[in-house]
């Protein structure tokens, strides 16, 4: 749905400011009550979801120009993490803050308005199929010597999609390497695309480049079809969101999509993965936005908005609600809790109203200082629980936390859930 089509919706924002906080029912302290990193860091109203809705209306009505100085910053200096969306929808059935902000980005890019710092990343993506500024030829190096099926040459039921971050960030290679070992040990028929794996397109889509996203989605779907794939397993939450939510929105999509945590849970339930070692540690779990509130599966809908009882707004037929309720929250927690010796403690902001790690929506690439500040806030929250480590399930979150911890000279450890599993088996 284009921004123009959302004009009526935009006009119904009451500016209640719920989008700036976690759902108010969940406020547990002064310190960790805020939900939106963008307005906390940038301060002006325009940097909130409701501010971006009014910005959209201002543009649609010609009150502002796409080329106004500062507008690019307003539109793109946001992770699209979606906490605003959850808080808004506690009471609103008709507003879609994240969707409106996505469409606003698409519109800006269509008008040639984008952050100048995008140029090297987008150029590189177009040349090398990744925004990590790395050579495409090096993409599969993490798997050197692992003896994994190459699905560009062979066929398998399961493709393990590693994603850009874990493919190129050598510090994190242990994660996909462990996954390979686990899948092999469980006797799963799987393979990888190696150097020919493509970017999922999810991140570039959030950045506003819809054309690039569509290209990568189409390429990936073709490649998986050719390899006879039925199930996609990924360790990347961005990838999970792209495959689970964005691809089916645009294309015929008949693959099962599993985040690695879901697959690990399946293996545990089937008795194919057993923990034999104790990992004595107090940890807290960070919900990645794209696995949690934004990881809800796509639910097809075609219908229209109508009015009943005069003016009460309803959708006919019933429109699926994306309000964070169907994200993946319990599975990673269950895995962590099943590891002997681990004590899991919760941060104040968790599940559908977790504070973002700061890496999403292109912010890590465009606004590293803001990205680092957001991660630092999360580390502060993790520290307040008394945990010695923060565990998550997304390479982007891990990298951002590691960098923030190093910048702040903190001692907190960062683990992927796969790391913990590896220590326990």
């Amino acid at each position, binding site marked *: 749905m284009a921004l123009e089509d959302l004009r*009526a919706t935009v*006009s*119904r*924002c*009451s*500016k*209640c*400011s*719920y989008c700036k*906080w976690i*759902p*108010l*029912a*969940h*406020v*547990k*302290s*002064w310190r960790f*009550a805020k939900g939106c990193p963008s*307005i906390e860091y940038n*301060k*002006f*109203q*325009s940097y*909130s979801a409701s*501010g971006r809705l*009014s*910005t959209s*209306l*201002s*543009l649609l009505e010609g*009150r*502002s*120009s796409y080329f*106004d*100085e*500062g*507008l690019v910053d*307003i539109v793109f200096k946001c992770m699209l993490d979606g906490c605003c969306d*959850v808080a808004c929808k*506690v*009471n*609103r*059935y008709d507003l879609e803050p994240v969707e409106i902000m996505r469409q606003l980005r698409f519109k800006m890019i269509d008008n040639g308005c984008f952050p100048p710092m995008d140029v090297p990343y987008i150029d590189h993506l177009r040349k090398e199929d990744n925004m990590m500024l790395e050579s495409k030829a090096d993409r599969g190096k993490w798997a050197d010597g692992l003896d994994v099926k190459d699905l560009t040459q062979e066929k398998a039921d399961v493709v393990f999609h590693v994603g850009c971050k874990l493919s190129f960030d050598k510090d994190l290679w242990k994660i996909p390497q462990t996954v390979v070992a686990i899948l092999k040990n469980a006797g799963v028929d799987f393979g990888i695309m190696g150097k020919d794996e493509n970017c999922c397109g999810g991140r570039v889509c959030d950045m506003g480049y819809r054309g690039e996203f569509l290209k990568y989605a189409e390429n990936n779907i073709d490649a998986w079809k050719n390899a006879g794939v039925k199930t996609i397993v990924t360790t990347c939450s961005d990838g999970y969101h792209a495959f689970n939510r964005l691809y089916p929105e645009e294309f015929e999509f008949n693959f099962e999509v599993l985040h690695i945590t879901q697959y690990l849970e399946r293996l545990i339930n089937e008795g194919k993965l057993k923990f034999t070692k104790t990992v004595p540690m107090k940890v807290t779990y960070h919900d990645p936005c794209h696995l949690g509130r934004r990881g809800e599966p796509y639910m097809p809908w075609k219908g229209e908005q109508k*009015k*009943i*009882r*005069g*003016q*009460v*707004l*309803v*959708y*006919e*037929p*019933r429109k699926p609600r994306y*309000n*964070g*309720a169907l994200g993946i929250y319990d599975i990673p927690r269950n895995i962590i809790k099943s590891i002997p010796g681990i004590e899991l403690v919760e941060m104040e902001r968790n599940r*559908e109203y977790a504070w973002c790690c700061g890496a999403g929506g292109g912010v890590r690439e465009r606004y590293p200082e803001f990205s680092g500040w957001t991660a630092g806030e999360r580390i502060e929250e993790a520290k307040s629980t008394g945990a010695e480590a923060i565990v998550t399930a997304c390479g982007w979150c891990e990298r951002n936390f590691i960098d923030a911890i190093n910048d702040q000279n903190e001692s907190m450890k960062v683990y992927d859930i796969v790391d913990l599993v590896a220590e326990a088996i």
Partner: protein
Amino acid sequence: MALLSEVYEALENIVGPENITEEPATLDSYAYQWMAELVTDVTGGSKFFDRPEAVLVPGSVEDVQAIIKACNQYKIKYHVFSTGWGPWAAVPSAGQILMDLRRMNRIIEINEQNMFAVVEPYCVAAQLQAEAMKVGLNNHISGAGSGTSVLANACTFQGGGPDVMYFSSPQDSILSIEWVMPTGEILRTGSMGSDLGWFCAEGPGPSTQGIIRGSLGGAGGWGVVTKIAIRLVNWPGPVQMPIEGTAPSYRTQLPEENFKAAFPAFPSLQRFADAIYRIYDSEIGYIVHRQFVMWGDELQAAFLRIVTDPTKQLCDIPELLETPEIQQLTKEMQRNFQFIMVGMTPRDLAYQQKVLDQILKETGGWNISIIEEPDMQQYVLLFMLKLCFKSVNFTATGGFIDTYNSVASPDVWASGEIEAGKALLKKYAPKIADCGDQAMGPIGGQGGGGVTGWEDFVFYDPQDSDSSKAAADCSDEGDRLKAAQGRPPGGMLFGLARSTHADEEVRAKKLSKSPEYNWQRKLKETLDPNSVGSGNYFWGADLSKEENN
């Protein structure tokens, strides 16, 4: 009209370049407001009021003081807001700068022994409540909900709410105040005026609370209140309310020996009124409010089923209304209110329950059965104790205003005013939502004897010009009907929206009959000699001079 570069630079030097902007979309994000589309003579029906010339985000009382002094020096008008929900937060007219106080957000102190808190403007009720509960205390929350400023609701706006019968109105709970006066001087009132702490509103320092606060507060144009001390009350519950449930149907499970929600309902409005008087006289109840009727007495039962079930949506209303269960419940829920009992001890709660039972017995009332369902009990306790769902006012259509009813004694309601309000709303349906009786508001907080302050809600679609016009017409007709009765107008929200943004002369003409108007105007002339505080709803041009001429 952009600010002169000299003025902009002076302001920039105060707050730093990162805390001031003239960026058009940002200015529009402050001009966009709820109800703008109704104030058509100012907005032409758009969602935008006038843009501020610049927005500043001061970080301290010193910043605020310097900004106001600069405004006096350059004769620039300023407007200010805390959490900024509503048309009174937008600058009343072009040519003014706007201060967004979001950086001034601290809780300075929670004084457990003397039961008060000291807060800055952008501390919201939910934050203060979370911290207060940790030490066994609780704070008043405005009817606008826990996402709004504690300070603004107490000092610069109306600020009443569902808990006023127990907590008292916020203006009665203010202790010392730190006020940057319209000239830029800092005045600390009450005990803080003598640097003796925040505990007392009156002396040994000066008490100018009536001037600062007035009847409704200065709404952003009367200096800047930068800190207040506010009274807290006892909280016998857990240090953190446990929240359960799937979004958005959150609930809380509280100790049954201390907490109980009831839905008293009555066979007639006179019995309803009788019960209110008895409840007030008995001094029971923590929160007494007509809340869910805001959805209309014809829809409230269906709405309650929807908001407590994450699988349901508004499209389920027609089907729900066909079910015998909802039909029965809708019937039961006519003439009801929400009653939250909080016992400081189990014996206290048992006493309150016993008194309520007796009142129901004497008035022929009953407790609606749905509230005994555990999920409903937990939802209602969470809703009323945290007031965390108050954007629910916009759930049905995306817009609401009020009309007809306002402050009155329960006997007035019983005399046919609820039916009259309902008839008025029906007259404008279907251009406004057709929901039935929507007279909602707190009970017992507007003075002795259980006097209430209710609003008839008008749900309208803000992007539908016919619907918006009908809402405005309905509110206006409500005012005319009340004026004919010699009673105050009921459409307070819409009235304030219009008067805030009206031309000074228009506003003055409207208010010239008000006995407080001339007094307030004279205060304004004395304390704001350069008239740099933005115009707002309680002052305007001096008509007496015109008349004399």
